[in-house]
């Protein structure tokens, strides 16, 4: 049965939140996450006529665009500088007054810890917890499914150590 290309708006509504969360975990701050998310969907829209659903899933396709946009962002601004500024000037609780709840603060602090991980560890955790299969994660990261699983477990251990150090 042929895979048909769904209306772009369907993809947009379905994936906006997941893409935003992925980007947020990559860059740490809400403002940058919004800018990059906007860029992702602008790029996706331009490329949508070339999207072939038989070739890849919408999730894998969109996350590839998101990953590239995030890498472009880091290349353009210098990741360390961006992170420093993010952490210093954007306390996790200031973005959304409703996020005063302790649990949400913890979640945002946890994502901030993810953002501090080395690039591939950060990437594998963000992609995996954005709902992608290990097969999709491996395809995006240029490694096998098994390698993606191993990388993920190493990243998870590294995150646990970081969380324990920071007492998140």
């Amino acid at each position, binding site marked *: *049965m*042929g*895979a*048909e290309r*769904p*209306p*772009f*708006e369907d993809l*947009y*509504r379905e994936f*906006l*939140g*997941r893409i*935003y*969360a*992925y980007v*947020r*975990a990559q860059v740490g701050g*809400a403002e940058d*996450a*919004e800018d990059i*998310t*906007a860029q992702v*969907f*602008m790029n996706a*829209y*331009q490329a*949508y*006529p*070339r999207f*072939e659903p*038989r*070739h890849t899933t919408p999730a894998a396709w969109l996350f590839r665009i998101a990953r590239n946009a995030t890498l472009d962002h880091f290349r353009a601004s210098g990741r360390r500088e961006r992170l420093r500024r993010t952490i210093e000037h954007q306390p996790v609780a200031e*973005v*959304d007054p409703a996020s005063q709840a302790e649990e*949400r603060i*913890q*979640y*945002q602090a*946890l*994502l901030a810890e*993810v953002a501090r991980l080395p690039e591939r560890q950060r990437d594998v*955790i*963000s992609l995996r*917890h*954005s*709902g992608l299969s290990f097969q999709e994660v491996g395809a995006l990261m240029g490694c096998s499914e098994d390698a993606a699983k191993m990388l993920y*477990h190493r990243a*998870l*251990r590294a*995150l*646990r150590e970081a*969380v324990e150090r920071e007492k998140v």
Partner: protein
Amino acid sequence: MSEQQDELELEALARKLDDAFLTTRPRPGFEDELWTKVQARRPFGLRLRDALAGLASGIREVPAVPLAGLAALVVVILGIGLVGYVGGQRQGGAATAPAQHFSSTSGEVEQAPGFGRLPSPSLKSSPGGAATTAPVAVGPVMANSEYSGPVQLTWSGQNITLGSASVFRYREPTTTDADQFASSLGAALRGRPKGYLGSYTATDYTLEVRGTVQSSAQSPAYFIYTSPSMPPLDAAGAAPADLASLFLAAHSLSPQWNYTTAIDSSGELTRVVFERQFDAADYGPAYLVDANGQRYGMEVDLQGNHVEHVSGVLPVSQDAAIYKLVSSDVAFREATSSAPPPQSLSTPAPAVQLTKVELAYLLVPAGDHSYYEPVYVFSGSFQVNGTTYTKHLVAPAVDPSQRTP
């Protein structure tokens, strides 16, 4: 720490991450703000396509339409928000500028005896209709995000009366055909991904070849994705259409059929569309249209002097046979008379007078062999709340007695 405890801790952290990713969402209002920006960047063709996808899904939801009626009723009504289009939503937009070109269509086409009864187009039809004398509601109609709803159609333009026209038939391309096409371009087989006849690599681009998409009636096609290493075209000051033609000629991809060109620009991307035409004998050139009445053929996407992407109709050998046509007014009546009764509406559906008609060709997939059959594309404009819309209606032109029901 025991191994078991270690695993439990990691699982707990993973659950916490799941929750963190699940609950991290953009601020309220961001989704709609961004969607508005995306909409404003939408190329015209895509806005149209999405609008029609909405139309089609609306149609599919209409219950209790007899299948036979649906098969006979080939009505597609498009709504295009002209005011939004002209009024600047298409940022950086460019005018569509048709320019007539011709190239040979002979050589691959030979007359054949009739193909028997032709398959009827199974367009995403509208379960509604209109008559020139007694308008009835049809719908739903998606113009753009600002308008949807039923309309009442009438036809009052100058009719086309042709006794007959050619129908073109081609055999479904095989992997061998795809390999030969790729080989002629100097591309080597890389694999056969699902849904494709082949994927190939050349020095500075990737080529993918696909057969007919039976479900949504798309012609056999090829797609070229250029690599960043492909040098930009060296043609300072050349117009996009010239750049595209230059690229196609350099890669032996120039269309071997008649066409006009149209330009669609959005941001830094410029799309050159080579709109394919068929020779309809007494009528002259007739455009190839999709199920929505939109012309298509080959597309070349340019960013500056760099070709980003090409999608084209895969060359296939085709034969032709002459079929009897009905006149456009008869086709209009046939397309609209078998409509189900209009649903009761709280507000009357706007009346739309279709005033123009042209002959075009539509792909009708039929398994091993598929057909390009003549259709009539009707169009007209109307206004709702000060906004001007254009509507199209596609109706088969081949005499019903020569088509399967």
